[in-house]
């Protein structure tokens, strides 16, 4: 039994593919915590799932669309999905209901009875799930939800559920343990096999009508009764294993169902919040890997949208065919926010989610990597510039072709010439390897030298500043300027132009 709501053919591995340090860096740089919290809506399980699933970028546009359709379906049938989730939670937490503590699992018989006690409520949950699907399967439109409901109808037919119940009853061994064995070395028994004891009528019992020989263990003979348990265990071992693995599987199924539904419920929570804040959302259009597509209208940074009640301005970018985007321009002009909006939208798209934009069309990538200027180095092992180099080196260990690298004021912690030189080398290497780079910088030397290359695959954006110094927080295609209008900041802080004194 498979859930397959995240991938049509297999259970994707939810463990992180990158080292934790890199994941934390990206999470921090893109301020994803805000996104995860909005998805969780106060539920810690939903938070964990969001944290796991969102960074596991899917690189296949078909699977992204597969998830988008499921998400749309879940939004349309929210009640049913929430009921399904409730059943999954119950199944997943079956161990809380069944008190197994104190049972020592050393004998196959004990293992068997422990698993039977778990399976009883699990089978009830399976029946509930089946009933729910019977009632509502017709409402679902997406391939994923239809596949799931069809699987449940197929795998959990009435006949099968009855058969299961019968076996569970028989496995409680109501008529004792019947086994057969052959003689092994030293005439000791071997090849133990379990059989179903016959149901004898009252007449047989009354007359004791059977052949063979027997004996009875003295009730005070503890060793004797222990020996009986061991003997039965030899015949029960395989079955106990099968039943326990099955209990694991059913519980695992509910656990998986719970986790995968939790992702979609998280998306719904996020959608609620954004809708309330009147932030536009849309399902983006993913294009295949390597197609160098990025076109958006009114793309907003979801983190900022969640952080503030004020209206957030969006950007329209036409960057199809672009391999490098260099963003320059005024301080406090929204460069970092723009960079984050690009990274977050990419991640959300590749998780199969909607994005905060009127429209977005972008190629999928092999992963989003971030290299942001960091305030302090608290490891004390590196100087600031050293730390930057060590960090890019750690990224280089894992970045592959067709990824995207977002740089925010990278290598600015040394003098501009040296920083630019290093940055150019890294940019060139990345581009050569097919990594898309978005680079926010105030290093005029770097931006200008790249601009002079006059490469059609390079796009230069500038944070808009009206002549009166007011920022629109919009990125416009423009060549780099030798100033970042730091004077504006100076004036804002000091209330007077620099050098006015």
């Amino acid at each position, binding site marked *: 039994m498979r859930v397959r709501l995240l991938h049509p053919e297999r259970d994707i591995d939810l463990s992180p593919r990158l080292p934790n340090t890199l994941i934390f860096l990206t999470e921090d740089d893109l301020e994803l915590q805000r996104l995860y919290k909005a998805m969780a809506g106060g539920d810690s399980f939903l938070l964990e799932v969001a944290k796991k699933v969102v960074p596991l970028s899917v690189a296949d546009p078909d699977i992204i669309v597969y998830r988008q359709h499921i998400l749309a379906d879940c939004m349309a049938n929210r009640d049913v999905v929430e009921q399904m989730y409730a059943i999954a939670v119950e199944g997943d937490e079956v161990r809380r209901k069944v008190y197994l503590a104190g049972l020592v699992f050393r004998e196959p018989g004990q293992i068997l009875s422990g698993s039977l006690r778990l399976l009883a409520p699990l089978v009830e949950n399976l029946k509930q799930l089946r009933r729910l699907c019977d009632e509502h399967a017709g409402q679902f439109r997406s391939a994923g939800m239809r596949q799931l409901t069809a699987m449940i109808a197929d795998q959990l037919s009435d006949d099968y559920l009855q058969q299961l119940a019968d076996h569970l009853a028989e496995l409680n061994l109501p008529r004792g*343990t019947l086994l057969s064995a052959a003689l092994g070395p030293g005439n*000791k028994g071997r090849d133990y096999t379990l059989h179903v004891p016959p149901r004898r009528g009252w007449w047989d019992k009354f007359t004791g009508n059977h052949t063979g020989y027997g004996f009875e263990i003295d009730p005070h003979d503890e060793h004797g009764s222990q020996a*009986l348990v061991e003997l039965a265990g030899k015949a029960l071992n395989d079955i*106990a294993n099968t039943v326990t*693995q099955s209990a694991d599987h059913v519980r695992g199924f509910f656990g998986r169902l719970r986790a995968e539904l939790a992702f979609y419920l998280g998306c719904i929570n996020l959608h609620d919040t954004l809708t309330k804040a009147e932030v536009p959302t849309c399902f983006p259009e993913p294009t295949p890997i390597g197609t160098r597509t990025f076109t958006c209208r009114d793309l907003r940074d979801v983190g900022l949208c969640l952080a503030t009640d004020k209206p957030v301005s969006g950007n329209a970018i036409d960057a199809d065919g672009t391999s490098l985007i260099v963003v320059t321009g005024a301080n406090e002009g929204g460069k970092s926010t723009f960079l984050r909006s690009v990274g977050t939208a990419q991640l959300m798209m590749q998780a199969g989610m909607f994005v905060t934009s009127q429209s977005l069309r972008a190629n999928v990538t092999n992963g989003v990597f971030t290299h942001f200027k960091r305030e302090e180095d608290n490891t004390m092992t590196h100087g600031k510039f050293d730390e930057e180099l060590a960090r890019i080196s750690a990224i280089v260990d894992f970045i592959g072709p067709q990824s995207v690298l977002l740089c925010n004021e990278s290598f600015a912690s040394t003098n501009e010439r040296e920083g630019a030189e290093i940055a150019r080398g890294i940019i060139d290497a990345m581009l050569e390897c097919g990594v898309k780079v978005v680079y926010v910088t105030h290093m005029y030397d770097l931006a200008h030298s790249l601009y002079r290359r006059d490469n059609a695959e390079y796009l230069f954006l500038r944070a808009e500043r009206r002549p009166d110094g007011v920022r629109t927080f919009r990125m416009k295609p423009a060549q780099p300027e030798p100033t970042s209008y730091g004077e504006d900041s100076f004036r804002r802080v000091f209330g007077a132009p620099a050098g006015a004194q």
Partner: protein
Amino acid sequence: MAAFRSILFTDPDAANDIDDLTAPDCFADLYLDQIINDVVQGNADERLDRYFYLPLHDASAVIYRHEVFRDLERDEVRAPMEAFVVGMRTMRQRLDRSGRLWHPLQRQGWFVYAVQEFCDTVAALGDELGRITPSSRGLREFADYVASYVSGDRFRTLVAGIGDVQAELRKIRYMVHIEGLKVHVDRYDGQPDYSLDIAATFDRFASETAKDYRVRMKDFPDMNHVEEQILQCVARLYPEQFKRLDAFCTQHRTYLDATISRFDREVNFYLSYLAFVRRFTDAGLRFSYPSITDDPSSIRADDAFDLALAAKAAKDGNTMVCNDFHLTGPERVFVITGPNQGGKTTLARTIGQLAYLAALGCPVPASQATLTLPDDIHTHFERQETLATLHGKLDNELVRIHDILSRATPATIIVMNESFASTTVDDSLQIGAEVLGRIIALGCVAVYVTFLDELASLHRACVSMVGEVEHDDPTKRTFKFTRRPADGLAYAAALADKYRLARDALVRRIGQ
């Protein structure tokens, strides 16, 4: 032809009191105890080492063993012998179990199981021996013996009997119904396997990565009283089969053939020693079958090494240094000198080991060797002082050497290591010269390790062996020994070189 009795001894009675033997006195000093321990380690026969306590004094007995060794070095001869030994070990384990168990039906079960292994093993050995052609007298005669044993009535009856009994027991399958404390045993009547049903039903809940919950069942060969009672019920359900089992056990109580059993024990001497040797030949060291001589002046060995040290070196991944030694003309005493930690004691031990191993009829650790068969090997190594003797250390040493000299004959080998060092140099020299004089007068072969260069040129019976050092770094020992006068000069010269204190260098430095 059927006279074959022992693969180790030409005189089969030579080993009559083998189990009472203890290690010869020289064992610890020559590290032979470590070597033999290594050789017999892991062998099921706890007393295999006893065969290594019995050196031979007859060249023909040594050659008898050399022939067998050479045969067993061939894989096609050794493999069936190893299989035979493994089979016999299994048989003995089962027999042992049968003897230790209490319940008669179980004893019989294990007995039959042991006999089964014996029959299979001996039959396989008979087949293999028919296929190979041993060149040694020992193995040829054994092959003849096995051939006649296998085709004999006694063995054939045994094989036929075991087949019948086993086949009948194997056919038995019985049911046990446990209900509460009641146990009921009956014949099995084709009831279906319930676990197949369960597996089929739960199949859709199976996953490839499932954890294995099967309990590892303790499987004692012994039975508890419940199993015994069940077995008794089974015996009542199948009386014919168990009656035949009983008859078989009574009839074949003494099935084990004494000669084959003795061969099984003795052939381990060869197999374990060869397995030990292979550890070193794989590492590039060479072994050889020594020529046996009566003439001490033709004693020689090339590329000899200390086997105990080699075993340690192999473990630590170090390479071994090999040494040559020989006697000519009147020479009888190796006087070994050289730097501390330079391998003097190792060389002395090597010579002693070679002599002893040659007398066991074993290949020796040298690429080529000619050796005598000593009537005894005495060692005189430093001992810890003990209060019990009430003597000082020097006195003790003197008492011991006196004892050795009074027992030694011209055919004895004496190995002395740093003897009489616990006194002044003059005393030491005087006593050493005195003792050496007696040894020389006796005419036996001796090894004398000393720091006294003077002893090396004491007499023309002495041959001086000097431990060498690295030419450009005298702090490094080469562990190589050469026959040359003990003058200690090479070491001094090398040291001088290293610190640019050699004569020419000093002249130049001073002249600057």
